[in-house]
């Protein structure tokens, strides 16, 4: 009698919680199956996505060309040197013009 009473109780409990459990289990299985199917449908991942792998030698076509960098470095040095010399020349011209102007004004004043 006792055993029958216990079975009855478990059946009631199963009827109360069983449907949601089954639905949940079905959802989990469905999602897992779906993910597996989707994963299978995706292209394989490359090493750069999963992690970076060091490489000893870079193929020549992948290497950054050095010649433009060397040319740029030399051009920059020349440009800065010539540009700076030009600014000195410009400033010198302005100062010498001012010098001539002030000298003339002093001479005019002295004559007057």
């Amino acid at each position, binding site marked *: 009698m006792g055993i029958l009473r216990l079975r009855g109780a478990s059946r009631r409990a199963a009827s109360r919680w069983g449907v949601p459990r089954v639905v949940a289990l079905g959802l989990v299985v469905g999602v897992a199956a779906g993910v597996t199917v989707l994963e299978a449908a995706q292209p394989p991942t490359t090493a750069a996505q999963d992690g970076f792998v060091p490489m000893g030698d870079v193929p020549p076509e992948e290497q*950054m060309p*050095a*010649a433009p*960098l*060397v040319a*740029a*470095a*030399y051009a*920059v*040095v*020349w440009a*800065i*040197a010539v540009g*700076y*010399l030009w600014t*000195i020349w410009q*400033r*010198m011209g302005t*100062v*010498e013009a*001012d*010098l001539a102007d*002030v*000298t003339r*004004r*002093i001479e005019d*004043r002295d004559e007057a």
Partner: protein
Amino acid sequence: MTAMNRRLFPVLAGLAAFFFVTAPIVIIRAPYESTMGLVQKIFYFHFPAWMAMFLAVFVLGIASVQYLFRGKPAADRLAVAAAELAVVFGLMGLITGPLWGIKAWGVWWQWDARLTMAVILELILVAYLLLRQYGGAGSERLAAGVGIFAMANVPFLYVSTEIWRTVHPRTSVVPTLPVDFGLPLWWSFAGFIVLCMALLAARARLEEQRAALDRLYLALEED
């Protein structure tokens, strides 16, 4: 000094032009470095640019000491000229360095001890020029102190690669260079040093002329 600068500049400028025109030929004939290849040839302009900057900073520092302790106005004018030159050569070094770094290290810039100290020295020199430009009356003495401080930084900057672990090649590379690498380096070095002296003569002459103009303005106002 003005007359000397006037005679000195054409000689130095001609000599600098000779070194700069012939330097690429000497550099092209130099062998490639085993690990860096072609990009290592930037070194032949990069290193001398910094050496010319150091020379200008030493002139700035010594002239500043002379101005502070002996009150020589000519020394102050030389200091201004040298500070401006130091900024110019520092700029060359700061631009050619990253052009090398992007190929040799894979990055344009690395905040390691050598590179950071180089930027700080450049900023100190820019601060000197800003102080001279906008500091007003009496800023010459304060600027002279900044100039001495800049000179004090140079030895630390030079030995920084020996003291701290940096990505930058060590300074000890230079004296151990084989002749094939040494010839283009010292050729360019001579060119940069002569160029530095030529520009210093020209820039110092500009300061002399400005001082003469100031004296004339004062004479005009006084009478």
